[in-house]
Each structure stands twice: as structure tokens, then as C-alpha cells.
């Protein structure tokens, strides 16, 4: 097991280095950083001196090494557009995105899993058909359209919920939270549903498919033949086996929740990292783009690692020696 974790860690570091390389390449080759820092009237000599001072004339490996070291210390330079250190911008925006993703993830999980179980156990009930139809529509509705429809109905027509922003937030040190005020919570409802709906339908379909697969297995048939109660069979045996693959995919989905937050944040003008990123692309604000890329990659790798460890906790075939070769 230790060997496995070490191998995973090394892999994670390699992935991070690869992403850092992309980020660095962005930094170095897309647009001239000097042009973005100085005015039109700066002389060639001054530019050259600045270039030398910034180490832009150093060999590639040296520059890359410096980039990685800086990135590891959360130093991504100055935003072209905002004129402030990128890490400050990100720290300021991170709580909004993380709270939104967290709420959306909870929504997706706590609605999606029960719906998946229900539709698997009651395949022919009309409610299952309703759930499945809704899920198909959910998959076919682009995230931004869901947001627009929600705004149209609940903000424009009914006037119940705010259509943009985080509402009132409470500051805890550098962290600002919208969880503690009524205003903040109402502002969170629509963005969280918008962001979570796609994941919810995905989780529901996944749980359903896995559960149907598990219910067909011999050990479930055998568990029934042993006279165990329907509850023990469905929730004791089938559910646990269903959740093993579901954990992996759900974990990985958490990563895409953070990515899809870009869209939700644009629709609801939610002041998070995604909105920052989109604006950075529009204005070719390379340091912000590179920093966001590295940060998201880091979150992904972290989630992947946690998912793998969870896998160990759930599946004994991996925990105890033997049963190897389970290509992960």
C-alpha cells in the first residue's frame, strides 16, 4: 500500500510539473511580458535591462526552475489587468468559488445518490421514469441556459431570489463566507443548483447503472437466497458495492465542478476565481491564466489522490495483498 501511495505521489508531482510547463510556456511565449509591464516610450536599453533583471534572458531550464519555485511559493507575478499580485487576487476570490462548488457538490450528491438508488430499485415505477426523463433533459441543458432560465423565473418573473453576486458576506480573517447570512444563502441557491444539476444527473445515472449491475451479480442472488431482508440486501450489500466505482467518478467530478464554476460564475456574476479566469482570457492576462491553470491542476491532483486513498478504505481487495493487477 505504501508503495502504491509513493507511486501515486510521484505521478502527481509529474503531472504538476507537466502543467507547470504549460503554464510557464504560456508565460514566456504568449505575448511579451515586458510589453505588458512598461509604457510605449521606454527605450530599448531600458527594456533590455528589465529583461536581464527579470531573468528573461536566462536559459530555459533556469527560467522554468524559477517559475516552479515561485509557483510552489504561490508567487505568480503581477496581473497585467489588475496591476496586483495574482496570488492576492486568487486568495480574495477563492472562498466564493470553493463555497459555491461545495454547495453544488452537496446538492448533487445528496439528491443524485438517493435518486439513483430509487430508480435502480424501482425500475418500473412512474417516478423512476420521471427522474430519468428529467436527468436526460438535465444532461442536454447547457449549464448557462439552466442559470438563465432560473434567473428568468425566480428573479425576473417571481422576484424571489437575487440574480447576481454573493449577497452579504462575513469575513473570517482572509476567508469571506456567505453561509452565515440569510442574504448570502439566498444568493447561493440558484448558482449552486445551476452548477450541481449536471453533476446530479450524472451521479444519478451512474448510481443507477452500477446498482443495476450489482443487483444482477451472483452474490446478491446468493444474499437473497440466504434469506437476508430486502433492506440488508439492497443497502447492506448492493449499495456498498455500488459506491466503490461511484466514489471514484464522483471525486473526479468534484474537479469538474470547480471548472464548470467558470460558467456559473459568469451567468450569476459570482465574484469567484472562474470569473477572474474568464476575464483574464478576454484580456489575455497571462499571469492570471497561468496561475489559475496551475491552481486547478493542483486541486485536481489532490482530489485524485484522496479518491485513491478512499478506494483503499472501501475495497479490501486492494488493501490486503493479493488481488493485484487491478489497474488503477
Amino acid at each position, binding site marked *: 500500500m505504501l508503495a502504491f501511495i509513493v507511486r501515486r505521489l510521484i505521478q502527481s508531482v509529474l503531472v504538476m510539473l507537466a502543467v507547470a510547463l504549460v503554464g510557464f510556456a504560456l508565460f514566456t511565449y504568449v505575448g511579451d511580458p515586458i510589453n505588458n509591464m512598461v509604457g510605449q516610450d521606454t527605450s530599448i536599453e531600458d527594456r533590455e535591462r528589465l529583461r536581464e533583471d527579470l531573468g528573461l534572458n536566462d536559459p530555459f531550464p533556469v527560467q522554468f526552475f524559477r517559475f516552479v519555485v515561485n509557483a510552489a511559493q504561490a508567487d505568480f507575478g503581477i496581473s497585467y489587468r489588475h496591476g496586483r499580485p495574482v496570488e492576492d487576487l486568487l486568495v480574495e476570490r477563492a472562498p466564493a468559488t470553493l463555497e459555491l462548488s461545495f454547495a453544488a457538490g452537496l446538492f448533487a450528491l445528496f439528491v443524485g445518490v438517493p435518486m439513483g438508488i430509487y430508480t435502480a430499485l424501482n425500475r418500473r415505477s412512474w417516478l423512476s421514469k420521471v427522474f430519468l426523463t428529467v436527468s436526460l433533459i438535465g444532461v442536454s441543458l447547457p449549464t448557462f441556459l439552466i442559470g438563465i432560465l432560473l434567473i428568468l423565473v425566480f428573479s425576473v418573473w417571481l422576484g424571489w431570489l437575487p440574480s447576481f453576486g454573493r449577497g452579504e458576506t462575513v469575513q473570517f480573517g482572509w476567508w469571506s463566507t456567505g453561509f452565515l447570512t440569510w442574504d448570502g444563502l439566498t444568493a447561493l441557491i440558484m448558482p449552486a443548483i445551476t452548477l450541481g444539476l449536471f453533476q446530479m444527473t450524472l451521479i444519478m445515472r451512474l448510481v443507477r447503472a452500477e446498482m443495476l449491475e450489482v443487483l444482477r451479480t*451472483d452474490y446478491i442472488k*446468493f444474499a437473497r*437466497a440466504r434469506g437476508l431482508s430486502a433492506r440488508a440486501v439492497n443497502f*447492506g450489500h448492493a449499495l456498498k*458495492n455500488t459506491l*466503490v466505482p461511484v466514489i471514484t467518478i464522483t471525486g473526479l467530478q468534484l474537479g469538474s465542478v470547480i471548472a464548470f464554476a467558470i460558467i456559473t460564475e459568469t451567468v450569476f456574476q459570482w465574484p469567484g476565481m472562474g470569473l477572474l479566469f474568464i476575464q483574464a482570457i478576454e484580456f489575455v492576462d497571462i499571469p492570471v491564466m497561468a496561475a489559475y491553470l496551475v491552481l486547478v491542476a493542483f486541486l485536481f491532483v489532490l482530489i485524485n489522490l484522496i479518491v485513491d486513498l478512499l478506494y483503499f478504505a472501501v475495497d*479490501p*481487495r486492494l488493501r490486503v495483498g493479493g488481488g493485484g493487477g487491478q489497474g488503477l
Partner: protein
Amino acid sequence: MSDPLLSVRDLRVDFPTRRGVLTAVDGVSFDIHPGEILGVVGESGAGKSQTGAAVIGLLEPPGRIAAGDIHLEGQRIDRLSQEQLRKVRGRKIGAVFQDPLTSLNPLYTIGRQLTETIRTHLPLSEAEARDRAVQVLGEVGIPSPADRLDAYPHQFSGGMRQRVVIALALCVNPRLIIADEPTTALDVSIQAQITALLKRLCREHGTAVMLITHDMGVIAETADRVAVLYGGRLAEVGPVDDVVNRPLHPYTEGLMACIPTTHERPPRLAQIEGSMPSLTAMPPGCAFHPRCPHAFDRCAAERPPLFDHPPSAAACWLWAPEGARATERAAS
């Protein structure tokens, strides 16, 4: 003889499909007496497994019992609700399936799967259930059972896993065990051990067994009586010695000729010409008549009932009593 433990009468199992209703089991009747081992033999598709699944109420949907009745210890069990049936399953009827590798839940220790079964059916504490689990594991021949209780299924070999499965089937002392091809998935070298184990344990506990297999060799060694199925219908039923050595039904006769023996060496293994008709294309009359060397007109026209010919009975016109009417049923 004592009252039968299990009594199946005119059982019919239907599978509604998009191309019409398939009848997988058609009018099968048999008894199993306490402590008796009944072998159920037939080719794949003959309806053996469906008969077993119908008895424990585990037919895969859309399969269903369309006609007939099943009594266990005098109580009718084919009309029970799922909840009532659940109390019969495991408690009174245990089951052993074909593949021990897939019969156990990989995510739980065998101890947990045993105690769970024991505590579902018996009013025991967790500790008492564990004691019982250790005892049963010992009985099925798991070495140092107390230590293996917290092991996961993947830590056992195939043969050992089938022993665990048998332990699970026997752990609350059911009156009947339905063993569906219990050795087919195992190594040939282990098959005999497992069969012998099953036979010994059932003798000791007085448990009856419905042993479903396509292997006449296993039946000949293990069973007390045999039921031969063909095309979802009962072809012949009788004591193992009579069925093997003095078969009544031409199909059984052909089946017995197929058993390879060690002392005589036939130039080639005998085989029955043709193959069993599929459920979608059952011929009229006797299902076997297109392949039967002794078929005559009546075989193609009328379906033979089960004719008593003590100690056996066969569904074949050859054994119709003089002047018997086609509709007459030989009651047992």
C-alpha cells in the same frame, strides 16, 4: 414412507418475452423426503435451474410460476409474499450456487457474511453468532476457522470459497439445500471433495438436498433418487440404482450410455443423435420423439403423462399400461 419434505406438483415456469411466452418448466412434479438427496439431471436448457429457482422463489424476472404448487413441510410456499418467503429462504431452504468466486460479496469478511445470515434467522447475540460461524466453518473443513473469520473472500482459493458457501447455506440448519451445479466451476481434483463434503454434512444434519447437475457421474455417486428433465418436462424419476441401471425412458437410456466407464472401452463415446429442441420450437407430443429410436405415431400426436412403473415412473408411451387413456394420470 414418511411425508415428503418438499412436494412439487405440475410446476410450470413461464418467461414472457417479446417473441411470445417461453415455457421453461412444464408440468414437473416430484417429491423430496427428509434427508434424501434428489439428483435433478438434464442438458442445459432442460429447466433444472429454473425448477430450483422456482422452489426458493428466486426466478429472475420476467420468469414466473405460471401453474402448479410447491409445498414445504405441508405448507404451500409458492404463493407466499416476498417477506414470508424470505423467512423460508436461508432458514428452511439453503442454496449453493455454481460459481463460488462470485457467490460471496467481495467487500465483506466471510465472518460478517456468516453472522449476518445467522442473526437474520436465529435469535443470537453477535458473539454467539461468531461462535456458531467458527463451528460451521470447522465443519466444512476450513483450517483454523477462528483465524479465517475476518478474512475476505479473495483470500481463499476456489475450493475453499465453495466450502464457505456451503457453510453459509448450512449455518442455520435448513431442512433442504438446493445445490445448483455446485462443483461445475471447480477444478476436477476438488469436485469430488466438495461433493463428498456436501453428502457427508447432509447425512449428519439430516438435511435433504436437491442436487442440480448435468453430470450423471456426480448423481450416480451422490443421489438417492434421480429426476431426469428433458425440454422443461420430467422424463423419468426413480431410485438412482434403477434409473442408472434399468432406465425406462429412451432419453435416460441414451444419457446413461454417454457416461464413460473405466472398465470397458467403447470405441467412441455414445451420443444421442440430434439435440434438445429449443423452448421456442417444442415439437407436439413427446418432446423427445424426433430423436427417439423407439418413437411411434402416438408419440408425435399426444404428450405422454407420467406412467408409474415401480419403483420408477416415466413419461413415455412405451410404458403405458394396456388400454390406458391418454388423459389418465398416474397418481403417486
